[in-house]
């Protein structure tokens, strides 16, 4: 699914963008949690019965207690302890946050997980067990349960009913990778192309950042080299760059152009002349 941004305004008042977790990730986390809790319970009791250390009434007590605990309380406790993540959510790398940008409160965690009983467990157990009532009532109930399960798919921020009550969102854990600064690391040792202001006047931010994408990968095959060469030709034609560019200098040409174009655009931007793309002159 396509990512949907959630703009959060932290108390520092600098808006930051997080990606709303996809329906698949949500479903996966939930399935994993169920698998882990119920599977763990099953294994524990299998071991206990096999080891034969507890008598039946103790076993029954433990069983009733655990069956209760691995439903709503497990989710509340784990999200409290791990800051909005259950084990399943940790594995698929998503997490619960407060939609208002403040910190997640215990109230929100309790509220969103109490609703799990009707939103997840009831429909899941009924639909999976196949114990439908016959007739219109059964059909209506089934339809209704499917609808409840699908609520997160139908709203823009993929909130469950519990999320709406608690005011929470589930987002992807952001991963930060800092790539090297092209303008700093790749200063040319060779020819050194110089561009005139009117040549830098052509492009805008969009083209600059597209060029940045191209420069992130040095060409390795002949085909890629050919593509870089095409880019160079196009740029030369557009900005009316008359000098010849030798084949081995093409990469340096692009790097130099990127650097000077960026400097030019950034300084225009500081003077209040922001150029989003190459149509900045026609004003569309």
């Amino acid at each position: 699914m396509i990512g949907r941004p959630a703009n959060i305004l932290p108390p520092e008042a600098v808006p930051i963008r997080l990606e709303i977790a996809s329906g698949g990730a949500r479903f996966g986390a939930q399935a994993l949690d169920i698998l882990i809790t119920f599977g763990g319970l099953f294994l524990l009791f299998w071991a206990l019965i096999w080891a034969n250390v507890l008598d039946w009434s103790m076993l029954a007590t433990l069983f009733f207690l655990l069956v209760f605990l691995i439903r709503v309380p497990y989710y509340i406790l784990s999200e409290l302890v791990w800051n909005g993540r259950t084990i399943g959510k940790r594995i698929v790398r998503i997490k619960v946050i407060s939609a208002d940008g403040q910190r997640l409160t215990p109230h929100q965690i309790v509220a969103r997980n109490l609703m799990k009983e009707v939103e997840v467990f009831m429909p899941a157990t009924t639909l999976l067990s196949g114990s439908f009532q016959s007739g219109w009532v059964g059909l209506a109930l089934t339809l209704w349960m499917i609808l409840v399960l699908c609520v997160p798919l139908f709203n823009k921020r993929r909130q469950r009913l519990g999320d709406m009550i608690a005011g929470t969102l589930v987002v992807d854990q952001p991963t930060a990778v800092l790539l090297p600064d092209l303008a700093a690391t790749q200063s040319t040792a060779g020819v050194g192309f110089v561009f005139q202001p009117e040549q830098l006047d052509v492009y805008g931010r969009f083209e600059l950042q597209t060029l940045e994408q191209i420069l992130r990968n040095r060409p390795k095959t002949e085909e890629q080299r050919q593509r870089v060469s095409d880019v160079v030709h196009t740029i030369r034609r557009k900005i009316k760059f008359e000098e010849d560019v030798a084949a081995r200098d093409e990469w340096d040409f692009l790097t130099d152009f990127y650097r000077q174009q960026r400097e030019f655009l950034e300084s225009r931007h500081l003077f209040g002349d922001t150029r989003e793309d190459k149509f900045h002159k026609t004003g569309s």
Partner: protein
Amino acid sequence: MQPDAKNDDLIRSARFRAEREEGWRRLEQLVAQAEKSGMAALGYDDAVALASLYRQAMNSLSVARSISMDKALLDYLEALCARAYLVVYAPQESVTGVLQRLFTHGIPQAVRRSTTALIIGFLAMVLGGFVGFMLYQQDTSWFFTFVPSGLSDGRVPGASEAYLRSTLFEDGGRDGERLGTFATFLFSHNTRIAIFIFALGIFATLPSFVLTFYNGLILGAFYAMFHEAGLGYELFGWLSIHGVTELSAICLAAAGGAQLGLAVILPGNMTRREALRERGRDAVKLVILAGLMLIAAAIIEGFLRQLVQTTQMRLLIGWGIGAAWLAWLLLAGRDTVGQDT
């Protein structure tokens, strides 16, 4: 600040990055550490550094958005700040603090604020009981309609008075351990029902109301049957000892559901989503209270009901505990400090 010679020939935004990169790397490292093993694992210096580095990174992001066209840098800072934000603004209340506030102020205040919902919750049960009683009076076969056969356990219309009496006054030969199992079962089962009743309330209150009403119907029919056998008073005692707490808890859960339902039906000037969030605060506290009362009720039902065999004592204990709940809910948290969590 004198920019050093190495950075001198860089363009402005690259210089901006070169000057701050070290701090970002350090922040990234601290955030990774905190994400992995929690804030508590950070030392004092690290925790202080995290807070100030976070603010610096936020500042950098804000500046970078206005001066830099380096997409990679913007993406990185955006992700770094988001990650750091999630760590810095993690819930940090201590569990004891939260619980204390909940008990001294949160729950009693929430209950006092939810009059309408409480009326709906209790009305559902009382109406159900009344209707069940009246219908049984008209035609005893209604009993079989209301009461699932698993629940009645031989206690059906026409059963002998002696048998009915024996179900009220015998400990079923259960020893302490078995009683413990029974109590745990009751607690786990009833609490799930309560959460269920609560959560269904979001569908316009109706399902919560119907479920509670149905509980009332069963109760009414049962009472009518024992009443017919001349055991009304004894049944009342048998039910009172735990029922005052347990049935109130079910009604409270229904009231919590009603809070959600009311937010959906009557959102007032707010959007439904806002209304749900607003009312959800009190609703959740009602359910927590219900859960708490169900634990108490399970202990009473599991142990005390079998151990206390006279109706007077049963009445005294049951209604005494009920009065204690009421006193707590009405009197606690009257001062204004500690409003809400």
